[in-house]
């Protein structure tokens, strides 16, 4: 189980991004997670709750969006879904392909940050 390591890496990244924006309060962090990232969403959610305790992000939510696997099919010459994670064949024509376009993502895509009214522009 390396989800705790991953959760701590997410918090490091959140802290860095929050500092870069003047120490803003982060309400939520949005994560894109592919099935080939090596991380299980449920386990990561639990680990994140544990990791955020006692930090300045102890109420920060983790919103995970799972990204489906997309492969390049050399026969269809286009991006296609594979049959499954166990069978990297084009779901349309059945051609095997090792070219994974999406599905390995483990990326922080966005953060929800809080602006106090008085400081908010406009």
């Amino acid at each position, binding site marked *: 189980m390396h989800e705790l390591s991953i959760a701590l890496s997410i918090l490091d990244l959140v802290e860095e991004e929050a500092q870069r924006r003047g120490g803003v309060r982060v309400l939520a*962090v949005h994560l894109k997670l592919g099935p*080939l990232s090596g991380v299980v969403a449920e386990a990561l959610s639990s680990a994140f709750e544990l990791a955020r305790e006692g930090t300045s992000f102890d109420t920060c939510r983790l919103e995970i969006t799972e990204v489906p696997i997309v492969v390049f099919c050399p026969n269809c010459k286009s991006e296609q879904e594979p049959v499954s994670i166990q069978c990297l064949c084009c779901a349309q024509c059945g051609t095997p392909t*090792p070219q994974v376009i999406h599905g390995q993502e*483990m*990326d922080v895509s966005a953060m929800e940050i809080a602006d106090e009214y008085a400081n908010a522009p406009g």
Partner: protein
Amino acid sequence: MNMQTRLVEVRQKVLKQNDVVARALRERFHQAGVFVVSLVSSPGSGKTAFLEKTLTLLRPHFRVAALVGDLATDNDAHRLARSQAPVRQITTGTICHLEADMVQNALADWDLNEIDFLFIENVGNLVCPASYDLGEDLRLVLFSVTEGEDKPLKYPTIFNTADVAVITKMDIAAAVEFDPAAAHNSIQSVRPGMRILEVSSKTNAGMEPWLEFLKQYAPSKSKSQSPVLANSQGALS
């Protein structure tokens, strides 16, 4: 107090720190002319036996070294040291995988210019190591004939991140009714086109094709230009 929330785009890889270190390592390895091979498998698949044999057979022809990750013991490092190659232990404690900075720290005082092939044995684990780039050129995933032909289907991610699959303990394949064709099908299903090697570290069966395969990546600075295959015939027979 009233708060206004807004969404800001970040677009950063979670493991960007690891990736930065791994890229720097890869750059150092290439500049020093070191070819780096990492090994991953579940515990007990025979990584250490395979690596010990590889080091022993390569050492007369190339300058080889190994880093070995282990949760708690240095038993594997002692076993590998029997090959006479420089070996260094990385004790990971509770961490179930190696990360790029652990490799970087372990290499700190080694002169990479003095190494042709560096092997990195990961902690026995088919899940966690998948996510971490270590700066290696080639990642081997090993599984033994006792683990079931469908192992790749159960751990598709690690097979997807690896370059070569090595089936170990082939000497007992018949005794455990191992079905090579089924195993090959499983591997090809999760990673179409993957190169597969079948070896026995005990009898040396399959070691020649493996050494031959490695030899094509031998850095030109190596101390001997003599072909591994020709020279290792004696050792193998």
